């Protein structure tokens, strides 16, 4: 492109460069949206199969069992069980929630909210997607490769992960996915710093932009260590090195022929150095989305804008010094354990501060209960449960008992499913009119909301009880241990609600696709919102704004002063 191109309204015309290899941040955002939602669905299907084994161990799956698992007569074998577990975690986190929260919403909404015509590096943006997709497909393809998919959990602890089949493809796919996220994070950081509209000072940026900014910093600094760690593990598998293998390992009665001298714990440290910041990569965009929706639907400014920004930055910084609380039982000195205990308690403070700000924002508001707002409101108590149940895991003494039980699974899923995914759903309902110029049906949306909330709690709450009763995670057959027999009915409850949750998503899928073409038509700003993404047409044209917008005020001027009920950021003066 030359300097003289007018950036506005002149997108490419042919189908391939408009919808497939597009450099427009909005098209790329939608590509990420659809792809990551499909990955979420696939990861969900994996766990529905796995949960059959947990509810009814060793029994064939009725009706569809022969169809999907023909070779075993519908029984989930231990090898398949391990594959399902490992791939569920990997797909949901690295291919589902992160691309949805960061790449999909970030790509579409962030440039609009800061008044930019596009991302700073549009072609790099396109490249991120086209590295992510092959990475994802490679990950999926491991199911049909000899030896099957990875079987060592999403954490891939060696030496198991180096001995088990399927791990090589996992590692190669991870290198691609990580590279894609890294390129994306550079793009988000430069865009936020450099592409802001005139008057859009840092402290006038919407909370969602701040959340994406902090998230991008985390991705930038936390992902390279996992990339390096994955390269070392790949070397162990492919080149026969022994970075993570000590000497004298015996597998199936035979001594492993490696030089030895490696450290299995090294992987755990490197992995969690990424994976703890990763937890905040999952939750920060969710917090940002909720903040936007809550401010918009309470019709008043957010309580504690500066405190929200400060808390998120503090979370970002602290998240790099808490990683070893995942490893209290892996063997570390007591003083090191104490250090990570203290940092873990400290990082819970800003998380509570964010939640408190959002709850206080409701006070005195005249709340509009749109579907998006319902989801955003549900985030508050659900994330609260997820966060508070995490404290006993961060304290070394109680973690000795709770470590590796279903309590951990319950805690983690309360944070990521009823926390992150609920907030991402809120985001879909909230920004749908901007993407397609039409609204999603509120009736179906509310049906989706209530059934989803009930089912999610039905799945995850019993896990706290089974976990406290001592059921181990990753166990193929819970009834193999006698003490689990008393809580086995709760496993059935969890599984039934998991399958019901699938049914509860059908109205959403129908609503989503129907509304793209047949939803109620709406104007540019159906929610009467103040932030810049609502100042351009729905959907925005190539180049977004008619002319570069100018920003005159903070992001949430709802009912501030007596002149107007709400004042958008780009409006200079309010007429009485």
């Amino acid at each position, binding site marked *: 492109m*030359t300097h003289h191109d007018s950036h506005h309204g002149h997108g490419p015309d042919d189908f391939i460069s408009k919808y497939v290899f597009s450099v427009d941040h909005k098209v790329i955002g939608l590509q990420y949206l659809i792809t990551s939602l499909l990955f979420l669905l696939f990861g969900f299907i994996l766990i529905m199969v796995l949960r059959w084994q947990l509810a009814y161990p060793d029994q064939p799956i009725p009706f569809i069992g022969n169809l999907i698992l023909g070779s075993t007569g519908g029984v989930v074998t231990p090898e398949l069980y391990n594959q399902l577990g490992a791939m569920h975690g990997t797909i949901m986190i690295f291919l589902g929630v992160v691309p949805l929260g960061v790449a999909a919403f970030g790509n579409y909404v962030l440039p609009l909210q800061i008044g*930019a015509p596009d991302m700073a590096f549009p072609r790099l943006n396109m490249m991120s997607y086209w590295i992510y997709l092959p990475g994802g497909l490679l990950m999926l393809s491991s199911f049909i490769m000899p030896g099957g998919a990875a079987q060592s959990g999403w954490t891939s602890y060696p030496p198991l992960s180096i001995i088990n089949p399927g791990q090589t493809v996992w590692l190669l796919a991870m290198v691609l996915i990580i590279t894609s996220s890294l390129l994306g994070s*550079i793009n988000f950081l430069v865009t936020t*710093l450099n*592409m802001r509209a005139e008057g859009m000072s840092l402290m006038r940026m919407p909370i969602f932009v701040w959340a994406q900014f902090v998230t991008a910093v985390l991705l930038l600094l936390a992902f390279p260590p996992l990339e*390096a760690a994955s390269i070392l593990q790949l070397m162990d598998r492919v080149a*026969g*090195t022994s970075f993570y293998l000590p000497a004298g390992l015996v597998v199936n009665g035979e001594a492993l022929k490696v030089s030895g001298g*490696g450290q299995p714990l090294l992987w755990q440290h490197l992995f969690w150095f990424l994976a703890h910041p990763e937890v905040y990569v999952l939750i920060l965009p969710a917090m940002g989305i909720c903040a936007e929706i809550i401010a918009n639907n309470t019709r008043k400014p957010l309580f504690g804008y500066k405190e929200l920004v400060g808390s998120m930055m503090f979370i970002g910084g602290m998240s790099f010094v808490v990683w070893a609380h995942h490893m209290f039982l892996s063997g570390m000195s007591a003083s090191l354990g104490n250090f990570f205990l203290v940092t873990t308690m400290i990082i819970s403070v800003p998380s509570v501060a964010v939640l408190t700000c959002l709850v206080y924002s409701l006070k005195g508001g005249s709340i509009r209960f749109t579907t998006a707002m319902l989801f955003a409101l549900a985030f508050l108590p659900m994330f609260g449960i997820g966060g508070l149940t995490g404290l006993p895991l961060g304290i070394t003494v109680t973690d000795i008992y709770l470590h590796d039980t279903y309590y951990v699974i319950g805690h983690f899923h309360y944070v990521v499913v009823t926390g992150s995914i609920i907030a991402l759903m809120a985001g879909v309902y909230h920004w749908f009119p901007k993407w397609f110029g039409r609204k999603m049906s509120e009736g179906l949306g509310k049906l989706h909301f209530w059934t989803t909330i009930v089912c999610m709690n039905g799945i995850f709450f019993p896990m706290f009880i089974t976990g406290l009763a001592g059921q181990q995670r990753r166990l193929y057959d819970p009834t193999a241990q006698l003490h689990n027999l008393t809580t086995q009915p709760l496993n059935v409850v969890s599984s039934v609600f998991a399958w019901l949750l699938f049914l509860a998503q059908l109205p959403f899928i129908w609503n989503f696709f129907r509304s793209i073409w047949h939803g109620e038509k709406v104007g540019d700003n159906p929610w009467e919102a103040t932030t810049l993404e609502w100042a351009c047409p729905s959907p925005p044209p190539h180049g977004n704004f008619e002319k570069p917008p100018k920003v005159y005020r903070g992001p949430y001027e709802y009912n501030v002063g007596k002149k107007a009920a709400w004042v958008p950021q780009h409006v200079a003066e309010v007429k009485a």
Partner: protein
Amino acid sequence: MSATATQALGPSKTTTGIPNGKLGVWLFLTSEVMLFATLFTSYIVLRMSAPSWPRGWEELNVPLAALNTVILITSSVTVVLAYAAACERDKAKFNAYLWITILLACAFLVVKSFEYGHKFTHHHFPSTSIFFAVYFTTTGLHGLHVILGIAYFAWLSYWAKDNWDHELFVGRVEYGGLYWHFVDIVWIFLFPALYLL
């Protein structure tokens, strides 16, 4: 592309005044620092926990590595000279220094491949010991970065042939140079860590 995007923002170019490309390269280098820092940390952890560690200078060829260090540092100088030439709008000189840089980088790889070949003929493979695992993995990854640099500079030279715009190419060679210095610095850390300590 970024030039077009910033154009639409008006005459002020970018909000911070730093060009997008420069900011992007620095952020990329930050992530690269984390990547190699992880590898160095792993090296330290593995070495500290090993009962014995071979002396680098007895296992590896120090004179060849010293030669490579000189070659790489020289190439860092020539890439700066290419940048200076671009600033002086001297396209011929810019091209010449760019190609000297590329040739030096290739020379580095040739010397490195002699070293690797020598190790292989003596049956030293990554699987031989944890020392050679660290040696081959870190220098191999560094070698990949050198290849990436060669590809970028070659493409830059090819690109400049018909599209010479000195303002744009000053930036492009500067960003490449920043990356190249980083590759150089990684080697300056690798050399003593593997060969001399």
